[in-house]
């Protein structure tokens, strides 16, 4: 016996300590609550001739378009999020810049429901919230910032290391940028030579 024919649609949904709102509503607001992030297992083949399949966890970044609740005759129901997923499987869609920041491009989407293989839906419980900061220099790119839910406390236990309210950026590689410690850093902007700054005092 499958689910009943009618499914409910929502414009907002509270799950995992976040409030998600669909993109259509977010466009009119100063806040954005439609950005979804998740790690999902994906089957991948290293080459077409290879028989052995690899199962890896891939980061997916997306924007929430629709929330659907499928009801199984009142016994239980499943909430599904339909998202526009950025193409994070290629190096064009997701990249790391020289400072270690992740850049995501929404120019090309995957799982757009055109093919039978596509899966634009995820379970609501798998969704995590991020927000995207647009790159001013390249309009296609944005930087995802991960958000920890408020009022959700880690009571210790196994992973004490992860006890940050906001995860600071870990992957910065400042040592590479400033490898020459002993005073070789150029301290002034030399292309400015002819425009010496006025003193304010």
């Amino acid at each position, binding site marked *: 016996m499958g689910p009943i024919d009618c499914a409910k649609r929502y414009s907002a949904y509270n799950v995992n300590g976040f409030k998600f709102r669909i993109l259509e509503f977010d466009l009119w607001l100063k806040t*954005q609550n439609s950005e979804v992030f998740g790690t999902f297992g994906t089957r991948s083949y290293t080459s077409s001739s290879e028989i052995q399949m690899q199962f890896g966890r891939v980061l997916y970044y997306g924007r929430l378009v629709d929330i659907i609740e499928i009801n199984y005759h009142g016994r239980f129901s499943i909430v599904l999020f339909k998202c526009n997923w950025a193409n994070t499987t290629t190096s064009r869609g997701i990249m790391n810049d020289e400072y270690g920041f992740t850049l995501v491009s929404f120019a090309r989407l995957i799982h757009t429901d055109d093919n039978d293989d596509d899966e634009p839906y995820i379970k609501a419980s798998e969704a995590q919230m991020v927000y995207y900061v*647009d790159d001013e220099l390249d309009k296609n790119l944005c930087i995802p910032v991960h958000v920890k839910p408020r009022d959700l406390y880690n009571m210790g236990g196994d992973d004490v290391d992860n006890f940050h309210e906001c995860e600071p950026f870990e992957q910065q590689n400042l040592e590479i940028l400033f490898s020459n410690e002993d005073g070789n850093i150029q301290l002034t902007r030399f292309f400015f030579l002819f425009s010496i700054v006025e003193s304010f005092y």
Partner: protein
Amino acid sequence: MHIEKNVCDNVVSTLLNDSSNKCKDNLKARKDLQLWGNRPDLWPNENGRYLPAIYTLTNANKDIFLKTLKNITVPDGYSSNISRCIDVKQRKLGGLKSQDSHVLMEQILTFCVLDKE
């Protein structure tokens, strides 16, 4: 109580090199360097003028920095509407609450600045 907010104000002010006393890259600081005989390329000349430091943003870069901040939209309850705190014309950032400073320091400031190089 407001250590993080004060540090944030100082960092942003120094980056934007504005005329408030929150900017820590001023003539007195440069004179101190001269006094200590340290970093001669940062010393002011006899007229009290000095070269901008490597971390001081150019006007064009300031504009990109502020525009990035201005266009940021965050989830509900994350911080206040930061775009209201920014004056792109006068290239100023003001009126941040402590929580905004925290968000700025912890998350946003790093890539807003790094973007521009």
